[in-house]
């Protein structure tokens, strides 16, 4: 059935969405994280009354403003894409996301418009306390504006609290709290915002390291580093534990994603975590190729991560595709059969309603409801279609984990040498530190690749594959806008780099 769809259009639409989302995500983590750091710096200034802390706060606030101004509204483009390229999906989830996203946008706009102005214009013009309050509200507002979009993303990976209405063709919300506070949504929000704090702390370390290497604004750089190191250390440790919790949830609700990002083709007891490895790109679920060119595994660690038990069984890709009776794992083929029954009965239900045969419609509706849990599988052509791109998922996951493990050590080193008073002499650390922000962005982007590529082929896990979520458009239409976005976003990125570099070069202004 999947062969009826234009895969080329789907892939271009996916590429376009990935392009816009990844460019958008170059700006967002810095906005989310830097807003908190600016609030901390501002608080220290208000507490101490020190002019040096004021200069420092104004400097980072200015860079926050540059990033915010360039990045603002880049996310709106994704909403355009939903309506144009992904109209089936948009229609089907509109009841769940439409109103909350709109309300969130309006609240965020007014919150930010009010307090942003006070934060930037308020120096010596409003009371110190109200000014500080505004800075904190900008941080709260910026981070709150990320809530519902992350809840929406979490719902797509773990669609709870909904029921499909065959009359409206919509997934309708049955329980708001189940959607908003699902463990997956809470974990997604905390992991994303805490990792953004980490990225912002790395941004400050990078620029401050550069200042120290040049011998410029030394006091400001040192003070910035101390606060950013503490902030970053706490955030990075939280990210590690929170990431582990995310993996535990993924093992439960998206076992195929876990198997893909560990390159685990055959399920194992005491499954090892690959610490280092190169994936064999020719490996497929239906061939006997070796999965890795080479790999080094830590025994039992994947089982511990997935099930909180060293000796437990972790299903591999083959178990999930073909089933495994011993461990009670239902294969994709069986789910596809039930999915096809669901689709057939949905169609028959609509036909019966059209012809006014309510009794027959009720019978088909009852059968549809029995099998609707597997609706999405009915659109797949073969069980092997349930396998996401393994090499990309594996590489992205391991890049994210490697960098995520490095960052706490880096923050600790910066803090240790700062407190010891020898940071200025550590030229190697400072030299490496200038690229930390780029590494933070790489880790952050890799995290989204893991989340989004690892869940393919699903737009909504188990219910709607991307091939059915799309609009029936020609490939050329999507290609044209893909290149337009590429140009627009590249120009914005160049503007960001250019303005940011100039402001860093100027440094903090004297009052």
């Amino acid at each position: 059935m999947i062969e009826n769809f234009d895969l080329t259009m789907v892939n271009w639409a996916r590429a376009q969405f990935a392009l816009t989302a990844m460019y958008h995500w170059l700006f967002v983590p810095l906005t989310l994280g830097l807003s908190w750091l600016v609030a901390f710096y501002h608080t220290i200034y208000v507490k101490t009354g020190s002019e040096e802390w004021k200069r420092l706060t104004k400097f980072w606030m200015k860079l926050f403003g540059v990033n915010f101004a360039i990045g603002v509204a880049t996310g709106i483009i994704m909403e355009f894409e939903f309506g144009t390229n992904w109209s089936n999906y948009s229609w089907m989830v509109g009841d769940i996301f439409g109103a909350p996203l709109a309300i969130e946008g309006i609240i965020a706009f007014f919150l930010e418009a009010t307090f942003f102005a006070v934060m930037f214009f308020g120096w010596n013009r409003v009371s110190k306390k109200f000014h500080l309050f505004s800075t904190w509200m900008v941080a709260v507002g910026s981070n709150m504006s990320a809530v519902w979009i992350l809840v929406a993303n979490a719902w797509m990976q773990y669609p709870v609290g909904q029921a499909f209405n065959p009359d409206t063709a919509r997934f309708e919300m049955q329980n708001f709290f189940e959607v908003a506070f699902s463990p997956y949504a809470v974990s997604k929000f905390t992991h994303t915002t805490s990792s953004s704090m980490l990225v912002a702390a790395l941004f400050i370390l990078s620029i401050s390291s550069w200042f120290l290497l040049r011998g410029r604004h030394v006091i400001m750089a040192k003070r910035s580093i101390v606060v950013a190191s503490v902030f970053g250390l706490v955030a990075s440790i939280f990210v590690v534990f929170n990431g582990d919790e995310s993996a535990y949830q993924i093992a439960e609700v998206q076992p195929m994603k876990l198997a893909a990002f560990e390159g685990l083709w055959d399920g194992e007891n005491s499954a090892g975590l690959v610490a280092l490895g190169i994936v064999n790109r020719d490996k497929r679920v239906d061939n006997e190729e070796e999965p890795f060119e080479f790999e080094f595994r830590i025994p039992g660690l994947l089982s511990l991560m997935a099930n909180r038990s060293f000796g437990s069984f972790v299903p591999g890709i083959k178990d999930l595709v073909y089933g495994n009776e011993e461990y009670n794992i239902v294969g994709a083929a069986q789910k596809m059969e039930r999915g096809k029954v669901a689709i057939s009965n949905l169609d028959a239900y609509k036909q019966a309603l059209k012809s006014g045969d309510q009794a027959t419609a009720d019978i088909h509706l009852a059968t549809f409801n029995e099998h609707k849990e597997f609706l999405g599988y009915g659109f797949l052509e073969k069980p092997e279609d349930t396998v996401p791109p393994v090499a990309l998922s594996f590489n992205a996951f391991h890049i994210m984990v490697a960098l995520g493990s490095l960052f706490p050590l880096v923050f600790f080193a910066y803090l240790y040498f700062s407190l010891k008073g020898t940071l200025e002499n550590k030229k190697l650390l400072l030299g490496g530190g200038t690229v930390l922000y780029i590494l933070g962005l790489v880790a952050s982007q890799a995290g989204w690749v893991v989340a989004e590529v690892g869940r393919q082929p699903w737009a909504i896990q188990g219910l709607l594959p991307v091939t059915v979520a799309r609009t029936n458009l020609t490939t050329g239409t999507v290609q044209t806008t893909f290149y337009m976005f590429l140009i627009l976003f590249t120009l914005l990125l160049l503007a960001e780099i250019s303005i940011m570099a100039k402001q860093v070069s100027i440094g903090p202004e004297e009052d």
Partner: protein
Amino acid sequence: MEQIIVKQPSLPIRIYRFYLDGFRQMTLGKTLWKIIFIKLLIIFGVLKLFFFPDFLATNFTTDKDRADYVIDQITQSVQVTNTLEKGDQL
């Protein structure tokens, strides 16, 4: 002795002046606002208007029509199979 009473402007006027003075004193901010306006113009005035119509809103007038279209889209694979089966019987 004559007492001079300075009347404070009303709250809306103070807020208006706060924003006005803030915008007047901007330096880097002016460049950033230019970028924001150009960007919004491109996004809403060009991309949204000419390249990103809302497919269902543009092509259908009622929610029922939209729902029927989407159901038709997601069940089309079954319809193709049914048509082929009927063709076989003929």
